[in-house]
């Protein structure tokens, strides 16, 4: 018996030692980290003005570079509602051309390899003229002409290729573009100079015209669609709906390995749910020739496995959602540079205005928002890995965009100022302030539920801080997570009182504003409605002047801030980590992501 227990203790000690040994071995040497939010090659990216040029260096030819996609690509038509995913955009922009490309600093740049000039030549009617680069051609020899633009317009305007009829259960007898915004305002698209000049005339003005034919949604080769559907090649203007549908479906089902593309690389292999392989396209005519021997996009669906894969040199760059442990893990990997950039996603609290108490009393909402301390929230969440994060002050723009104005801070919302919050309530004749809040009519306020998607610790903390802040006003809040499969139901059915999630801003904010803030908009879950705001946003969508559009949106935003419907919290950071032996990758937080400039990527010379 004694032998038994001493063997037991020996065994325990051995196990403990093994565990400690594993732990010690795993923490490796220090990395090249310096500066607050980035290191070495990517360190200057957060400096004002350097976002588009940081981490630049001459390259030498050769090398295989593996980048990570966080989801499988299920459908290859990125213009389609179902195919409109970030990963799809990342993979396709390597091989398909687009007119304007969003840059890391949230501006858009003209893609001179495709189009040598794109200008608005007249504002009434709004006329746009694109001059296609004479060298631009698909890699089967067919030149890129106005026909490709015409095909793009007609498949995306919602009219020439209509959605599938009610009798179609296979969902295949029509086109379902992710958005018809802009294309449904085009009156005509015509080619001249042998198809090298494209003239677009708008029926109604569209302020975000730079979004057309690009901005993350590239052009597909029209002649491929024409050939397989039996239409006359080069004559997209006369394709029938059935023919366009055939083309649409073809691009859905087939990866670019199967048809002619026009990019610095061509996709040579697609292994479903595993990886895509790209190799330099010898037919590429562009200014920058690709230097890598091979480019691979590998699918890794669990973000927690990415730093380990990076450390093991199975991938060379990762682009996950940052969180404190992930960032710290990457920091400790040697020969890796990283950047914590400011993204286009922003976190916010939404109130459900369908709730009778919340919907009726503006003062209550203003008080609730004023009592919440965004500083507390940030210190427990994003500031743990990015101390430079600041509260967000706009519903339409993020800092760094030209139209950004901080409209929220001045009102005191998000400050946690309890005295000010209580004053709103006492002024509006609420009773029981600080203990058990009641409306002027004597009805009890709350309890409200705060909801977030389950499994998200950051959002769990945000709800808990809100709960504790509002308790100071006398409002009881219960926390009710939303099951993994239920977010859609909860939002669409507005089954919440308070909810926290994220919107994605855009270099073209008017379309988003229309969806989210206008009465009855598809993203307007909380039931906000204000006629002035509706008018201002409609005007903003229709004006051709970007600065004027920004002014109008901000005017509408001021009204929204006063109505206290949505409280912006902070801009969510993005995180890019790359091995230092490769250069020219940059953190691009727009919907095109870091692969916006794959032609430049390469081994450091």
């Amino acid at each position: 018996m004694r032998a038994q227990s001493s063997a037991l203790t020996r065994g325990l000690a051995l196990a403990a030692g093994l565990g400690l040994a594993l732990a010690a071995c795993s923490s490796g040497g220090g990395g090249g980290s310096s500066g607050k939010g980035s290191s070495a090659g990517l360190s200057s990216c957060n400096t004002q003005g350097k976002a588009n040029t940081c981490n630049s260096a001459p390259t030498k030819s050769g090398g295989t570079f593996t980048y990570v996609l966080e989801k499988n690509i299920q459908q290859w038509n990125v213009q389609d509602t179902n195919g409109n995913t970030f990963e799809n955009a990342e993979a396709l922009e390597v091989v398909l051309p687009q007119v304007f490309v969003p840059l890391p600093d949230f501006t858009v740049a003209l893609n001179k390899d495709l189009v040598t000039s794109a200008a608005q030549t007249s504002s009434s009617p709004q006329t746009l003229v694109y001059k296609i680069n004479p060298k631009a051609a698909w890699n089967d020899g067919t030149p890129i002409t106005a026909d490709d633009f015409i095909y793009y317009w007609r498949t995306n305007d919602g009219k020439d290729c209509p959605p599938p009829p009610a009798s179609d259960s296979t969902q295949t007898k029509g086109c379902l573009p992710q958005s018809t915004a802009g294309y449904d305002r085009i009156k005509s698209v015509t080619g001249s100079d042998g198809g090298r000049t494209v003239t677009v005339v708008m029926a109604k003005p569209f302020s975000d015209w730079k979004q057309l034919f690009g901005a993350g949604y590239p052009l597909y080769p029209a002649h491929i669609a024409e050939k397989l559907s039996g239409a006359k090649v080069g004559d997209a203007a006369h394709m029938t709906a059935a023919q366009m549908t055939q083309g649409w479906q073809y691009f859905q089902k087939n990866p670019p390995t199967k048809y002619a593309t026009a990019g610095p690389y061509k996709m040579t292999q697609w292994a479903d749910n595993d990886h895509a392989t790209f190799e330099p396209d010898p037919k590429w005519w562009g200014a920058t020739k690709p230097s890598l021997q091979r480019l691979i996009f590998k699918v890794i669906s669990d973000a927690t496995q990415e730093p380990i894969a990076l450390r093991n040199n199975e991938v060379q760059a990762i682009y996950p959602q940052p969180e404190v442990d992930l960032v710290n893990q990457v920091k400790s990997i040697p020969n890796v540079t990283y950047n914590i950039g400011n993204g286009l996603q922003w976190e916010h609290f939404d109130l459900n205005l369908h709730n009778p108490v919340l919907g009726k009393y503006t003062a209550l909402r203003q008080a609730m928002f004023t009592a919440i301390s965004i500083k507390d929230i940030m210190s427990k969440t994003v500031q743990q890995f990015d101390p430079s994060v600041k509260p967000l002050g706009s519903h339409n723009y993020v800092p760094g965009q030209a139209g950004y104005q901080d409209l929220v801070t001045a009102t005191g919302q998000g400050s946690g100022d309890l005295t000010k919050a209580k004053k709103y309530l006492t002024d509006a004749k609420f009773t029981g302030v600080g203990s058990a809040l009641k409306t002027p009519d004597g009805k009890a306020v709350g309890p409200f539920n705060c909801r977030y998607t389950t499994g998200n610790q950051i959002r769990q903390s945000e709800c808990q801080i809100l709960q504790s802040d509002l308790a100071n006003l006398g409002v009881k809040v219960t926390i009710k997570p939303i099951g993994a499969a239920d977010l859609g139901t909860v939002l669409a059915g507005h089954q919440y009182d308070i909810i926290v999630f994220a919107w994605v801003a855009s270099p073209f904010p008017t379309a988003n504003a229309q969806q989210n803030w206008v009465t009855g908009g598809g993203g307007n879950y909380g039931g906000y409605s204000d006629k002035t705001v509706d008018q201002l946003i409609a005007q903003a969508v229709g004006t051709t002047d970007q600065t004027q559009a920004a002014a109008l949106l901000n005017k509408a935003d001021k009204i929204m801030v006063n109505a206290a419907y949505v409280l912006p919290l902070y801009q969510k950071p993005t995180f890019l980590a790359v091995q230092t032996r490769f250069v020219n990758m940059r953190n691009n937080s727009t919907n095109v992501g870091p692969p916006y400039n794959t032609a430049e990527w390469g081994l450091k010379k």
Partner: protein
Amino acid sequence: MLAYTVRRILVSIPVLIASTFIVFLVVVNAGDPVANFATSRQPRPSPAAIQAFARHIHANEPAVQRYWNWITGVLHGDWGPSVQPNLDIGHDLFTRFRVTLTLVAAAMLIALVLAVVFGVFSAIRQYTAADYTITFFGFLFLAMPVFWFAVLLKQAGIWFNEQTGSQFLGTIGEKSPYLEVDTTWNEFTDRIGHLALPTITLALVSFASWTRYTRASMLEVLNSDYVRLARAKGLRRRTVMVRHALRTALIPLATVTALDIAIILGGAVITETIFQWHGMGEMLVESAATVDVYRTMAWLLLSAVVVIGFNLIADLLYAVLDPRIRYD
């Protein structure tokens, strides 16, 4: 025996139908995939797109009708529409099954061999230091959460790579996306390198429990009369061990193995997620989380057939190996 087998197979059919019907009802009520679709994209899909999607996945039909259409569809190879666009459920299912099978077969083989070796050794050297150590580690591995161990194993793998200056051990996927020098030998070593860590992870728990089982079974046999007689007859120890004791001792292990394999085939979810092997386990979690009814049903059908099949094999093995058991 044959009659028994046939009867069991016939009875399995109503079991399968009942099982699939129950799960169908559960999953159909689990959530609303149409609402998820409507809110999942930015910009939001148009009402026409939402309706097309609802029609596509038969969301508005009554559950019983959907179930009937599904089961008649499966009988001629149509597995139904998935929530994910473009996904051929049947093709995906069998690809993933092949992946899980590779992983599980390798792991179970290693676990079985090691369990027999360690279990027998432990039984022969009962109450010695070696026995206690093996027992302790067996219990330790039984007590560890799988992903807790997998995380540590990955760290150890990277440490190993760094020490040997090689990239032998892979932490994600079945194989590398490309090989610099593409020879058969390199492909082989690449596969082994990617198989190593997940196999160890998966084998661990089975190894621990099977070792205990073998040890207990071996002890019981070693104490029995006929083994004592064999030794008394003067047979060599090796002959006694292998020819008499071991074969009897392995009988219960065979049935336990069959059952355990069925369980693991159904979803080595954690191992597959951590090592990014796209197999059946990942498929179940994905389809449950996206409320993908038809995909979940496809998973269930294959998994249920496997479980029922292995249960039958276990019961038959028991009868075959132990002549005292008779089925009528």
